[in-house]
């Protein structure tokens, strides 16, 4: 049984570090890229054409970055992640696909970034809210700005609520997760119903010295019969399994309670009346 011990491992990620989580992330990367409308849907084509050096923070198994590297062979892509397993997988995938323009390093985003000032044209971080404690965000975003070239882009995407659904079991699990976020220092606002990273992204970017900050929302509809229904249901089933050590370690629920909710959710999700939408926000700014 996996455990959630960030004090010992310095890994705050609520879904842990396992092969199962890696498999889940490989699928999730693709789903989120699609739902968001592409790799960089909000950036003008001209800006994308001028990218040379891209850094992805918390790259996981490398899905987003490898697609970037694949789409543009002149691009030099760098990914960092706290998990050795994820980095090994991403590196192996890069070399198997002959993508010698992509490289991956093990590094913890709560530490200063190991790159000189102004190294990258684009620094990206997608869904790091479940992995980086709130207190570490302002220094991290400052570091992201530091390693960006003047005129370059710092871009962060976060999910709100984990999803809005009509399943009591899902919403109860979500409530427990928000409570766990609070206890683990991952919540951004004092609200027991929200994660809150979304409303803080623009402010973190501004306080870290970036300018021309803009925001773009996207959704993933995983209601019964909707585009992401099947794929997301598989995601939730695994995620609710993997989140158990986190919920137990933060003391917000007991094992039988989690198991009962998980079981109830898998029944709810099969109902034709099941409704669910995931909301996310991308915020980006420029380094002056």
């Amino acid at each position, binding site marked *: 049984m996996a455990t959630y011990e960030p004090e010992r491992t310095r890994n705050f990620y609520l879904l842990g570090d396992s092969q199962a989580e890696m498999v889940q992330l490989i699928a999730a990367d693709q789903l989120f890229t699609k739902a968001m409308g592409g790799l960089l849907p909000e950036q003008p084509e001209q800006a994308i054409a001028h990218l040379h050096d891209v850094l992805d923070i918390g790259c996981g198994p490398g899905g987003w970055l490898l697609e970037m590297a694949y789409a543009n062979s002149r691009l030099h892509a760098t990914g960092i992640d706290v998990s050795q397993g994820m980095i090994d997988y991403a590196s192996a995938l890069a070399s198997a696909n002959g993508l010698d323009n992509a490289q991956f390093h093990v590094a913890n985003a709560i530490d200063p970034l190991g790159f000189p000032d102004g190294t990258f044209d684009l620094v990206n971080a997608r869904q790091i809210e479940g992995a980086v404690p709130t207190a570490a965000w302002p220094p991290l975003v400052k570091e992201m700005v530091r390693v960006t070239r003047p005129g370059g882009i710092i871009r962060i995407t976060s999910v709100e609520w984990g999803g809005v659904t009509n399943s009591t079991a899902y919403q109860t699990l979500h409530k427990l997760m928000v409570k766990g976020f609070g206890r683990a220092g991952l919540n951004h606002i004092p609200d027991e119903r929200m994660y*809150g990273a979304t409303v803080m992204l623009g402010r973190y970017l501004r306080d870290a010295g970036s300018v021309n900050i803009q925001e773009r929302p996207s959704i993933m509809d995983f209601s019964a019969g909707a585009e992401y229904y099947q794929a997301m249901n598989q995601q939730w089933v695994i995620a609710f399994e993997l989140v158990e050590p986190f919920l137990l370690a933060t003391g917000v629920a007991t094992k039988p309670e989690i198991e009962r909710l998980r079981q109830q959710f898998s029944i709810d999700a099969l109902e034709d009346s099941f409704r669910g939408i995931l909301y996310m926000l991308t915020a980006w700014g420029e380094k002056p």
Partner: protein
Amino acid sequence: MTPSSDAQLNASSSSLPEQGVELPRLFHFDLPPLKQTGQPFPEQSDISSIQRVLDIASGDGQWTISAAQALPQVQFVGIEGQAALVDRARAQAKQEGIPNVTFTVMDPFGPLDLPDGAFDLVNARYIAGLLEAATWPNTLEEFVRVTRPGGVIRLTENDLPISNTMAFAQLGGLISDALYETKRSFSSNGQLLSVTPALKRLLQDAGSQEVQQGVWFINFSAGKPAHADLCQRLSETYRLAQPFLIRTGVTTPEAAEQTYQQMLSEMQSDDFCAGAFSLTVWGTKP
């Protein structure tokens, strides 16, 4: 003129029959973008065939009047159950000299006293909270009935705004709880309003086709262009919502007032961060 303290409620669906204890429209997140862009229906690719628009629960007419101002060639009709609000909307339209808008006292959530196919577009914005969740199917069928074939039915909702301050969160939570207690929430535990995931299927089930949905986000943190406008509107809404919250038993008068005052001061802080996701869902009448 009907005094506002004596507001008549035509709505029969309310589970709180006591007069004067009604919720106002909770959110107005679409007003700043409307005023900024002059586009009441930014997601509609072609508005050239839209000549008559019905606005559901038009309240004091702020959205309807702004939309009519933005599209002077379109005739807007607002329907609203509270006569006092209709009076205010009419007075406002007259004062601003907007000729292409009219307001009528009518329960917007019952059978509509309007002919079939009378409108090119029927617009209902942030009506969650104004009617019970169970009455949405019949209500939407009426919206579809009064839309002409090929016309559009358009809904916009939000599940709760998000902010980094305590009292704002508490008040949003109380509203969510009160809607749950009065069967107006789509949530099975009151956590959020949970109305947005329900909209697409509701519109399909009411007989509209080619249903699409689009998300948009408004940031009204301190320093943002929408901050003053939306904070003022939320302050007004949450003040008007207090009797409803107290009546439903989710809070006490003292606690509600204290939280409200705290929220007002939070909103003035430079640290105030807030935003809201809205989902606009629209379909055509076959």
